[in-house]
């Protein structure tokens, strides 16, 4: 079967918040195709709950500079501060623009967009949590995704739904397009264009317990890596403190924003010890580590590795009083109105009504701070300072870097809209002048051969077995706390798994129609690549910073490690590491206390 060729100015890969935002803006000046393996509204942006931050100051004083400082501090000073300034300044416009597109934000009594408190977001003068997270109940991501998709329909953007992108066509230092499989019938397609924007989301499925969808397998990052693009800061992966025990389903930080507290087996609000001033609303890496330490010290509920997240009105009001909030008081109805979906999840999956009983939670693999390196216009970097023409990335798969070593809650959605928009505009601009470079002969041959290989490989191992082993080793060795020996073991084991993947794996479904067996097998390859880069980058960084916490190097080491990791895949399959300096601006690194 010969691949079918389509030509568009720009090709957006992925239809989550970032992909749709980019498509919307790019389509104002160029002919855009959005190619996505899921129907757009099924992208994982739809799972985002808590909110999108912007210093609107709708209810109390707030400034974008405060937002920027919080972001930099949250990043453990690894974020590039010029990019952070862009993020926080443009967040205000971007959020207002979403409202103009019809996004149904919750409202304050004065009719303005409602905002709530969120981890790490503070009033810089008082150090107290500030109301910065704009939200639509606890389904903010869902509303962003729906709104953007709706606007794309309105603007008649071209969608290729359920087409899985499996290769990037790069010729020297130019990009010519991508190769995709039409999932429903197995047909290969080549999308020939002037520009490609990757917006494929995260790779949380490298770990066992994760808040990420089954579809988040790091395809975009892996494809870039395989075509010679480095991956930046991959060792920094965020473990969200409050995932439902064993399932990993996320319980938004908004629960704590509304007053919820973490309680150990002794009934103690343990965050008071770890972050005396903002307690349960400390930034995520801090809280996850605290939970880990509590359970390790035997203070997990029933001796197991989980603690309770308690948002029952009695508990919450008790601590409000203790914290001196005289004006705050909540009741059952308030919780139900503000956190309806959370209540639905815990009732469905745990049989727990959060207004009556506490929820069992544990840290869950959540968000990749690293990814495909870009500048503030979404242009992908070939190395520390050269841009590769025609290639862009935005959203979770990209690393601008605004999140550094640890992302603040709500800052991902901001990232999607701000940098999705910027890259969209940049692409529209680029396509105006750029010429369509010819498609090389046989652009799809290599990947088609790879699929034939997977299809026909004989062996006794199923992709699921390899996936389970990878997840086990990543959880065990490259999790919340890390030590050298374990990370090294993970690197070795991942290499062995990759070998197994090539040599011993076989699939059951040999057909062409909607073959999810072969696609899952191929996705596993992407996961293995992302896992390996993560493990290698982690083993290399000999300090603790943000999401990368080491027992053997417990301190942050600005002298040696205030730099970004850039990991390259070499021709021979080995990974090499280089570094990129961090852009420091107004905020000099200092110790991080909450």
């Amino acid at each position, binding site marked *: 079967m010969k691949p079918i060729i389509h030509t568009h100015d720009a090709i957006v890969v992925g239809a989550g918040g970032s992909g749709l935002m980019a498509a919307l803006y790019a389509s104002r000046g160029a002919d855009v195709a959005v190619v996505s393996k899921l129907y757009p509204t099924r992208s994982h942006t739809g799972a985002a709950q808590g909110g999108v931050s912007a210093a609107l100051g709708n209810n109390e004083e707030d400034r974008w500079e405060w937002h920027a400082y919080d972001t930099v501090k949250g990043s453990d000073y690894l974020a590039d501060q010029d990019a952070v300034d862009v993020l926080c300044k443009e967040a205000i416009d971007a959020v207002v623009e979403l409202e*103009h597109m019809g996004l*149904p934000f919750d409202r304050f009594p004065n009719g303005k967009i409602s905002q709530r408190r969120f981890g790490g977001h503070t009033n810089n003068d008082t150090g107290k949590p500030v109301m910065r997270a704009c939200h639509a109940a606890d389904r903010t991501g*869902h509303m962003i995704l729906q709104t953007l998709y709706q606007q794309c329909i309105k603007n008649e953007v071209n969608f290729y739904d359920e087409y899985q992108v499996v290769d990037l066509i790069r010729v020297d230092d130019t990009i010519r397009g991508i190769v995709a499989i039409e999932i429903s019938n197995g047909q290969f397609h080549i999308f020939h264009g002037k520009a490609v924007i990757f917006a494929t989301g995260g790779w949380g499925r490298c770990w066992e317990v994760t808040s990420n*969808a089954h579809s988040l397998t790091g395809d975009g990052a892996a494809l870039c890596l395989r075509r010679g693009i480095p991956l930046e800061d991959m060792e920094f992966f965020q473990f969200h403190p409050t995932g439902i025990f064993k399932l990993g389903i996320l319980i938004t930080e908004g629960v704590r924003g509304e007053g919820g507290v973490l309680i150990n087996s002794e009934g103690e609000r343990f965050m008071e010890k770890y972050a005396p001033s903002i307690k349960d609303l400390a930034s995520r890496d801090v809280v996850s580590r605290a939970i880990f330490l509590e359970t390790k010290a035997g203070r997990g509920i029933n001796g197991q590795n989980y603690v309770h997240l308690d948002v029952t009105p009695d508990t919450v009001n008790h601590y409000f009083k203790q914290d001196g909030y005289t004006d705050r008081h909540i009741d059952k109805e308030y919780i139900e109105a503000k956190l309806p979906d959370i209540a639905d999840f815990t009732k469905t999956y745990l049989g727990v009504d959060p207004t009556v009983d506490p929820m069992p939670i544990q840290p869950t693999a959540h968000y990749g701070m690293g990814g495909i390196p870009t500048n503030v216009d979404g242009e992908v970097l070939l190395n520390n300072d050269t841009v590769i023409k025609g290639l862009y990335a935005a959203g979770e798969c990209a690393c601008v870097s605004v999140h550094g070593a640890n992302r603040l809650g709500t800052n991902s959605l901001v990232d999607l809209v701000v940098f999705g928009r910027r890259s969209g505009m940049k692409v529209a601009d680029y396509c105006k002048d750029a010429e369509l470079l010819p498609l090389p002969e046989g652009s799809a041959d290599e990947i088609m051969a790879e699929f034939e290989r997977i299809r026909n490989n004989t062996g006794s191992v199923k992709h699921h077995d390899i996936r389970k082993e990878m997840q086990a080793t990543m959880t065990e060795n490259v999790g919340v706390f890390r030590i050298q020996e374990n990370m090294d073991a993970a690197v070795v084991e991942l290499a062995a798994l990759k070998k197994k993947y090539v040599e011993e794996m076989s699939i*059951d479904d040999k057909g062409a129609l*909607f073959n999810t067996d072969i696609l899952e097998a191929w996705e596993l390859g992407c996961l293995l690549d992302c896992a390996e880069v993560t493990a290698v980058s982690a083993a290399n960084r000999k300090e603790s910073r943000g999401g990368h916490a080491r027992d053997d190097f417990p301190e942050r080491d600005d002298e040696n490690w205030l730099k970004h990791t850039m990991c390259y895949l070499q021709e021979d399959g080995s990974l090499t590491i280089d570094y990129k300096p961090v852009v420091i601006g107004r905020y000099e690194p200092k110790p991080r206390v909450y």
Partner: protein
Amino acid sequence: MKASLRVKRYNPEGGGKPHWGEYTLDGVSQNDSVLDLLHRIKWEQDGSLTLRRSCAHGVCGSDAMRINGANALACKTLVARLGSGDNVKIQVEPILGLPVVKDLVVDMEPFMEHYRSVMPFFINNDNVPEDGRERHQTIEDRERFDDTTKCILCAACTTSCPSFWANGKYVGPAAIVQAHRFIFDSRDKGAEERLNIVNEQFGVWRCRTAFNCTNACPREIEVTKAIAEVKMAITNGII
């Protein structure tokens, strides 16, 4: 405990006919979802079993299927809800009224076409406020359409509707829910156009108030209520 699953299989490639696949799983827990069980079949027994899924917790709308006779999301249907005892019997089929592509996967295009037909996007060409900030909306006005913003386009409602089974031209409850979301948004200016679309022959009037949609909706949207509100808006000329 054990679970015995009967899954409707169909692979037209090579002229296959629809048939039941029978699978037994050991070590099943009350808290497993049907998606977990289908995954186990796919990963441990037969990799060719085909279904859609993504988020695994009921927010993406990928895995609507007919479980023990009624539409539901596989990832949100726990074994505990389907039976107790040490051998739970579970029957899984694709949703009705859309062409089956393979096994549990149906062609969503007719459904999406209806969705797109109701102008499911915000319309307001007035100038934005002078300060460049957001339009205002009262809490009550926002509440008015809250329920219908929850829709994840899973198609469980439309494919449970006897009117849709009978005639695929019926725009279907999901599209009406989407229209409702905008019609009752105080900021939106496209209400009349949308009302006219669902006022057509195969619009809201095809709804026979059977309530299958409401019962099937995994987001617990009050679907029939929304449809009735649209009917009344047309009838009374007031929204």
